[in-house]
């Protein structure tokens, strides 16, 4: 019957007495741990997806939206830009731009985005090897990100019709043209690439040209995919002026009648002042806009940071209140146990032992609260992860344990100790004789 077991027995003897403190403590710890996890994982996703992109060029609109849509694939496009205007930036000889990757968005397969781009996207921006098959070569060939392949159970050789927009509502299937054919599956990269289906830019154009050729049946009504409808944001790259398919293939840069959604840019030199001027020039002198991912993400983080700071302060208040609650329950339990403590002194327990006994009870409470809190936070994170993956097409996990959680443990034990110290002093001062005589 060592002290540790005795304090455990004391706590479990009347579990209800300590339950409120325990729940409060677990809630506070859980909330803090959950915030830490979300913060860390979101930050990680944002950072890994920055991928050294210095500038995103797209249609005018919200710069944050441009970044979220074209780098993180969680918002709608701001519109399209004609290749005619974007040509200078796609030119490999541009003095400031080392790399420019065009993106064409607007279609999905089972709500996973199909992105029309070039091989540079997987060579340089999100370096990824294929676990199966090969990179797309011809039109209508797609390579599939790891998560998409896993969730939709896709294999090389699968055929599918893409759907219009970003939401899988089962209505806007491009079921009139050719089917996409899966030719490759990417390895998991931990970046947004896992959530995408990649093809060449021309395929995206082709899907819509094809439909324009045949046109929707005249009696199709509103349910049919109508290319003159007005959700431009959903589907920014319509090419209504497309002529009949032209077999002789032009370079992308020469398709001056066509549109892309955006261009991801890496500078030759980040520190060159002319690079910095490039964005301003585009914004002031063209119909396009240029946004800097690092800057926009910092802005977003600082906006979210306010709410997060508030929540964190709330969590800290909960923890402090629960510390007070531990203090009060220990103190009131001492009143009932005065005789017991005096008896222990009679049986040979020193003052120091009684002090230790009560401190141990406080520490144990804090430890149990901490364990419950951490468990809650990870279960909560796992639930959130499922939800966030559905909503944002991002993978999060509830089972990432962090170093911060160790610090949280130290802090939790510290609070348990502080809450127990006054009751412990009180216990160690128990006067044997008066206590025994009083009762």
């Amino acid at each position, binding site marked *: 019957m060592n002290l540790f077991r005795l304090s455990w027995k*004391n706590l479990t003897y009347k579990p209800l007495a300590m339950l409120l403190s325990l729940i409060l403590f677990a809630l506070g710890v859980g909330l803090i741990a959950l915030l830490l996890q979300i913060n860390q994982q979101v930050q990680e996703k944002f950072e890994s997806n920055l991928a050294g992109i210095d500038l995103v060029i797209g249609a005018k609109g919200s710069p944050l939206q441009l970044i979220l849509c074209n780098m993180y694939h969680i918002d709608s496009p701001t519109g399209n830009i004609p290749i005619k205007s974007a040509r200078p930036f796609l030119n490999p000889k541009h003095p400031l731009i080392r790399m420019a990757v065009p993106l064409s968005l607007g279609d999905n397969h089972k709500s996973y985005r199909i992105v029309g781009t070039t091989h540079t996207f997987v060579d340089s921006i999100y370096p990824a090897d294929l676990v199966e098959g090969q990179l797309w070569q011809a039109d209508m060939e797609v390579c599939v990100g790891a998560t998409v392949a896993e969730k939709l159970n896709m294999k090389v050789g699968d055929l599918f019709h893409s759907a219009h927009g970003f939401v899988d509502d089962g209505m806007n299937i491009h079921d009139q043209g050719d089917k996409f054919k899966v030719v490759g599956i990417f390895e998991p990269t931990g970046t947004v690439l896992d959530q995408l289906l990649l093809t060449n830019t021309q395929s995206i154009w082709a899907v819509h040209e094809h439909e324009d050729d045949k046109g929707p049946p005249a009696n199709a009504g509103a349910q049919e995919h109508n290319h003159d409808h007005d959700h431009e944001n959903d589907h920014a790259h319509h090419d209504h002026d497309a002529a009949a398919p032209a077999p002789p293939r032009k370079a992308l840069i020469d398709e001056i009648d066509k549109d892309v959604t955006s261009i991801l840019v890496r500078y030759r030199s980040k520190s060159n002042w002319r690079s910095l001027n490039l964005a301003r020039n585009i914004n002031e002198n063209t119909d396009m806009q240029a946004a800097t991912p690092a800057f926009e993400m910092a802005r977003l983080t600082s906006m979210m940071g306010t709410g997060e700071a508030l929540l964190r302060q709330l969590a800290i208040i909960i923890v402090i209140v629960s510390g007070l609650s531990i203090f009060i329950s220990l103190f009131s339990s001492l009143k009932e146990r005065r005789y017991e403590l005096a008896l222990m002194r009679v049986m040979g327990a020193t003052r120091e032992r009684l002090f230790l006994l009560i401190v141990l009870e406080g520490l144990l409470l804090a430890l149990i609260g901490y364990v419950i809190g951490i468990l809650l936070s990870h279960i909560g994170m796992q639930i959130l992860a499922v939800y966030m993956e559905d909503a944002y097409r991002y993978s999060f996990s509830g089972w990432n344990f962090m170093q911060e959680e160790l610090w949280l443990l130290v802090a939790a034990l510290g609070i348990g100790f502080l809450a127990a110290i006054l009751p412990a002093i009180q216990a160690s001062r128990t006067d044997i*004789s008066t206590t025994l005589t009083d*009762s």
Partner: protein
Amino acid sequence: MLQTQNLTFTYDGNTVLQFPDIHCRKGEQWLLLGQSGSGKTTLLHLLGGLRTPRQGDVQVAGTSLGQLRSSELDRFRGQHIGIVFQTSHFVRALNVEENLMLAQQLAGQIPSRPRIEELLSRLNISHKLSAMTDSLSQGEQQRLAIARALINRPGLILADEPTSALDDKNCDEVIQLLEGQAREEEATLLIVTHDGRLKDKFQHKIVLEDKITRL
């Protein structure tokens, strides 16, 4: 075994209680009689080292209690003095066996299950080994209290009004148990009581008279 000299005690600095000198040899059984308010319990607490006297000295097994530091006194008490109180209290979160184990451990001994079983069976409550203490009857609780006082084989057993709450039958039983067990363990027994029923059961008696001096 137990020896006191010129023991006085004061509660408030004004009233001084004076106690007769006590001298009990090893293995002897003594009765300390006194009316309520004569300072019986105070004397017992002084003898058990639970209180410090104003003057005088208590010697148990050759050790002067006044010369021990607080923690040494706690340890000494756990090892050499067993105390049975008027009403029995135990650590409520622990069962019978665990309460006795705790008593062994707090006195710095290694918990011994055979010792616990032996004592409980001698006191006829071995079937209560894993019962919670608040489920015991009053008689059983009193026996357990005796077991706890004896568990570490102390040289001195002090009992504070062990029979005052009991009827005649239980009273006899408890006294017999205390006498018998103390003899078996070769411990010196001192019972403090105002219970007249015990008067004729003991040879050695000290009668406490009101000896209160006002300063």
